[in-house]
């Protein structure tokens, strides 16, 4: 190679490398790969922008292929469901020890609150003998399928920031949600449905709003798509009045044929991508309508879930989650609103309201786990049940006075979640809290540890599933060191 050739070679290399790293791919520009240090880590996700949801392999082979996340928005009380604390019952009505309160911040508690014993009897369930309260008689039958984590801990005690932390790894806006990360990493197995679907029940959106399923700094194709029980299951899925699906197919054909001529004239690769998207939209209309309709479920199944076609309920959403998972949707995120039981109203009380909410989720949770198991899907479907934080062992004294109903304040230090399927142990319990359940005494699990573990179960090294942005490799687990909780894994 002479000097001139060498120069040209190097110039070309420089240019080519820059283009590659700057996202030298049609249409999506720098967004896909970020800055020039993008090559720093291996395990990088490489995406064809014309097929952003195409299935991709994780870093290593893994059990879990998909996730169903059941988020109880508002944060349910562990003491009335899964956290058996006889000592707390004994201490009911006594002042919380001042040394426990020192330095802790609460949303509403102040001064010298009193301890509040569990409101419902607990007993061991299943062969594993794990303790569950009597509010969940059906779920007790599934207890051998799950792993409880009693020592989840967070540093956020307000709903919106805490939900952001659970779903994006950051307590402020701007992060990418877990479902976005997972679809970014794995794509989806069904190109005719969104890879990341969100289902709401309880009559309200979760406190966090759409930031809970946003794609943050990831490309917006990975944001969660909210599917609904009323109106269009996916916004704008149904055709305008008078437009049959045949006519819609015909119009899309016409659009795409004209677009072919446009591409022939202009040569813009984005036009080809657009043609593919219109075809996908057409298929999505059929497939999403079908996936979101419970009409073909047997009465037995509907009965098992307690589902009623057309209703907006957690039961329906659990059944829909199974249908979507079955069709290859990668991440199904449920939010069930109404768990924030401070004791300000009958509905929002742990003595009355909680019984009603527990009844709403009891049967569907059990049905979902057994249905997945019956269909051979539980082994590769990771199911997670969680709130955004726990509740205090003390009775809330909002405004510095006794409240109308029994309630507990937000508690960041300890809460209980469960996981099932997807390579998680069965009938297992992880971590212990102190006798009144104030904080973990063994094996605390940070939210970022849970994220690392979920990604691990899906085949990702959480340190390497990154998106370079403004000089930093962004990760679901954020900057602090996270660890995979091996004890949860079968």
């Amino acid at each position, binding site marked *: 190679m002479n000097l001139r050739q060498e120069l040209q070679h190097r110039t070309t290399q420089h240019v080519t490398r820059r283009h590659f790293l700057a996202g030298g791919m049609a249409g999506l520009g720098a*967004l896909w790969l970020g800055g020039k240090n993008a090559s720093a880590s291996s395990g990088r996700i490489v995406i064809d922008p014309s097929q952003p949801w195409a299935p991709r392999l994780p870093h290593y082979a893994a059990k879990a292929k998909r996730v169903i996340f059941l988020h109880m928005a508002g944060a349910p009380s562990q003491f009335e469901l899964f956290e058996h604390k006889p000592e707390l019952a004994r201490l009911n009505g006594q002042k919380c020890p001042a040394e426990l309160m020192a330095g802790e911040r609460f949303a509403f508690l102040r001064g010298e609150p009193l301890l509040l014993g569990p409101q419902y009897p607990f007993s061991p369930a299943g062969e594993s003998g794990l303790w569950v309260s009597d509010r969940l008689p059906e779920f007790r039958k599934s207890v051998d399928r799950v792993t409880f984590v009693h020592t989840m801990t967070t540093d956020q005690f307000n709903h919106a920031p805490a939900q952001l932390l659970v779903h994006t790894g950051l307590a402020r806006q701007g992060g990418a949600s877990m479902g976005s990360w997972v679809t970014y990493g794995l794509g989806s197995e069904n190109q005719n449905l969104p890879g990341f679907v969100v289902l709401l029940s309880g009559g309200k959106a979760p406190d966090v709003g759409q930031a809970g399923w946003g794609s943050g700094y990831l490309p917006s194709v990975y944001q969660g798509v909210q599917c609904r029980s009323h109106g269009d299951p996916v916004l704008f899925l149904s055709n305008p009045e008078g437009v049959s699906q045949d006519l819609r197919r015909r119009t899309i054909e016409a659009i795409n044929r004209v677009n072919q001529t446009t591409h022939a004239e202009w040569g813009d690769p984005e036009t080809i991508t657009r043609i593919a998207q219109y075809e996908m939209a057409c298929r999505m209309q059929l497939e999403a309508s079908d996936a979101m309709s419970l009409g073909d479920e047997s009465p037995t199944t509907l009965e098992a879930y307690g589902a009623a076609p057309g209703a907006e309920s957690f039961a329906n959403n659990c059944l829909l989650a199974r249908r979507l998972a079955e069709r290859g949707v990668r991440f199904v995120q449920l939010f069930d609103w109404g768990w924030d039981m401070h004791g300000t109203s009958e509905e929002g009380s742990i003595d009355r309201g909680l019984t009603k909410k527990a009844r709403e989720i009891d049967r569907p949770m059990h049905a979902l786990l057994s249905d997945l198991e019956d269909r051979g899907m539980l082994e590769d479907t990771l199911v997670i049940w969680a709130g955004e934080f726990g509740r205090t062992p003390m009775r809330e004294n909002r405004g510095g006075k006794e409240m109308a109903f029994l309630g507990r304040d937000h508690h960041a230090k300890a809460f209980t979640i469960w996981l099932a399927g997807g390579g998680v142990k069965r009938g297992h319990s992880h971590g212990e809290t102190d006798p009144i359940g104030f904080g973990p005494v063994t094996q605390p699990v940070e939210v970022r540890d849970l994220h690392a573990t979920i990604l691990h179960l899906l085949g990702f090294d959480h340190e390497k599933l990154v998106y370079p942005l403004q000089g930093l490799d962004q990760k679901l687990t954020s900057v602090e060191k996270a660890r995979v909780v091996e004890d949860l894994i079968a």
Partner: protein
Amino acid sequence: MPLATRLPATAFLIFAATVAVADEPAAIEFNEVLFNDQVRPIFVEHCLACHGGVKEAGGISFVTREKALAEGDSGMPVIEPGDHEASYLYDRVADPDDDFRMPPAEHGRRLNEQELATLRSWINQGANWEDPWAFRNPQRRPAPASPAANEWSQSAIDPYVFARLEAEGLTPATEADRAQWLRRVTFDLIGLPPTESERTLFETDHAAGAYERVVDRLLASPHFGERWASVWLDLARYADTMGFERDPPRDIWPWRDWVVRAFNADLPYDEFLLKQMAGDLVENATIEDRLATALHRNSQTNTEGGTDDEEFRWAAIVDRVDSTWQGVLGMTMGCARCHDHPYDPLWQKDYYRFAGLFNTTQDADLAEDWPKVAVPDDPALLSEAAAIDAGLSDVRQQIFRRGQEAAGPVERWQPLMIETAESTGETRLDIRTAENGPEVAAIGTVTDRSTYTLTAAAPAGPIAALRIDASPLDPDTAIATPEYGFVLSNFRVYLERSPQATSSDEEPQEVELMLVEVLADETEGFFRPIDSLRDNSAGWGPYTRMRRPRWAAFVFESPVELREGERLRLQLKHEMATDGQGPLVMQRLRVSTTSEDAIGQLASDRALRDLREREGALMARRKAIASTATPVLVKQPVSLRRKTYRLDRGSWLSPEEEVDPGTPTTLPGAASDRLELGRWLSADDNPLTARVMVNRVWAEVFGAGLVETLADFGSTGAEPSHPALLDDLAARFRGEMGWSLKRLLRELVLSATYRQDARVSADLVKRDPTNRLLARGPRGRLRAEMVRDQALVVSGKLNPRLGGPPVMPFQPEGVWKTVYNNQKWETAEGAARFRRALYTYWKRTAAYPSMMAFDAPSRDQCTALRPTTNTPLQALVTLNDPAFVELAEALADRMLARTEETPRDRIAWAAKEATGRPLPEAGIDELVALNEEMIADKSIDEGFAMTVVANVILNLDAALTK
């Protein structure tokens, strides 16, 4: 040096170094190694992660020369200029043993020979350092000249582009036809498609200056401001709600209209920034100037119950710092919130000094979103309202000064010996002995809205006034981490007569002693202290946080003669509460009395009475001016101003040393308050602001920035594709163009570069997929707003009204389900349905879905760059969203109204309306065939078929693209 020659030159230097490895190191040392081009990238890629701002492993950092030349923990010079063999750095990177070499094997690959040679030469040449390229002030650069370039060029940017193309062996595309350029320029300047008459006018204007006439018409259009406001609103994170859980409405649209007006008036960018940073602090600030500061009130306010106002006030400050750096300065300053910047010479202390510039405004994450300026709905009343505001402020200053002079000196007051103290609720009050008299302290569980009753033996002699001094529980820590404050909503004083004094039967046992004046330690707070004499919840006190001891004096109608054995009973009502952790009641207080005439006279003082009357009259006049209260920045009074501390790891609960407000030490210039910050941003020696803005405008017009990472001009960002062009344009933007956006845009859109045809060969796509080299014209999908606005124009439905409150076009039911917020989406009727997308109500937690589908950001935070995605959900929006279908129907009506024409002509006409140019015959054939098929089906009438065709037209790639 123009880029055309820069790239090969760089390559040559690398090459020279490579040759040197093979031969003799000394042989290449006359070739100067360029630090920024060759050395810094090595540090960034291989070293800074451990030896940078975050970690200084082994006491070694390569962020600045000073640090790099220091001795590390090893005691060896890390870099010995002139002697690579004596340099520990070289020793370690060249170590042949994988167990010892740097970077360690688990962190990355070994440096290659070429990199080693570069470091060796660089050290031997003296280890010269350069500031990062973006920290060097952009200067004019001579344009590369050649006959071919001169012939092609039409504006000052073109020679740079041409030279780069030439160096790449490429030639510019031919000039676009007029229709193509007109569509492009009309969207780029006003965000709307050209109308039929505008297209015809331009096609038939063959006189010289036709292009210039189009550009001047567009720049003068009132829609120009709307188009460019939408860019600014992304950076400003503008939304019509406050965000977080409850996401309540926020009336900040008057600021959005200010932005539109500013762009329309071509307010120079330096003033545009100054007004938004510190419009309230400029001399003779108008209401519009104060309104401009709402830029940084677009940060979120968290009204969720149980949230800590101070935590989220600080979050808003962080957001203001980060937005300013991302949006205006293009640096990732956010990195320095928790630690020194890992790659660039920006220190954690700089972050907090910069935050200090924003940390002294009155807003504090209050549910009321205070402070606000009442912006008159009728612009004709702006100056009258401003005059009233100024008058009120003056009156209140005078009242404040009277109070300070009379009641401020503590030696004028004697402690009241409080004997009993009781509270309502669960609050327990303790009386403690303090050095300046008894102090009442709240203990245990403190109940909201507690009312205190204090009693004391009446002091001997007359009393003219009472003074309350309230203190934080711990004044030493409260200054940095404030405690909950209080609002004394109502204060009453009663006198219990002694039994022997009540000689007459008619005389009551207890009389109220009437208070008439309250003078406090705050000039213009959220409440008027004198409201503590009235039956409302407003009053005196720090709302909602308290950093310092506070006082207020309450003056009796006339001095009261007290007799032996009489008792005073004081009743203190707190009526304000927050929905959360802390009670807004006094937790430590003392009471004192005075008999001084100077204070007693305040009750009857003529001048003070006049001031109070004027205050009342001005308030009434101001209230009569119909206005929209908009959150703005208002500075704190000096006596109550917050201090700023460096926060350990960014946690607001971990204040470390106090810092002085200021700008980063690495950058030239200085600022100690917001006004100076506003000037610093556009100072002659600020290297960032002009570059970042011209780059942003470039990106809007050409599809990608000269620096692709619009918000990161630092060491980890992309390098400029045309560095000389960027510098020259930046220098001219702030120089000869006088920061005029319109002048800048005029030059860009009239350039030969911009006028190129966007049609591209497969080869060129492969070679330059994102058009960084600019060998063709820009082509890209419309922004979310443009997708809607174009449909409005083409359907003939556009309501061109400018400004005003946000509107609610069609949105499917059930999108808004926010907790604890009963706000409803009420779809507008009539012309209000058809306003431009800019005016669509923007709710942060549930943003308008069809715009989100087209990549509009949630506006939760500053978005410097919108991605452009291409998804099936976008197709569903434009195919099926009733808001779009309605517009397709209207387009069909326009088609059908062309009664003279054949269906084919109508279809061709509509396609031209939607794409700005004739659709090729083959395309029209497709649409005609579709139409005919439908009409052949007896169940479909002509109107419906035409609507379907119109819907198809609005979905064409050529319609969704500019």
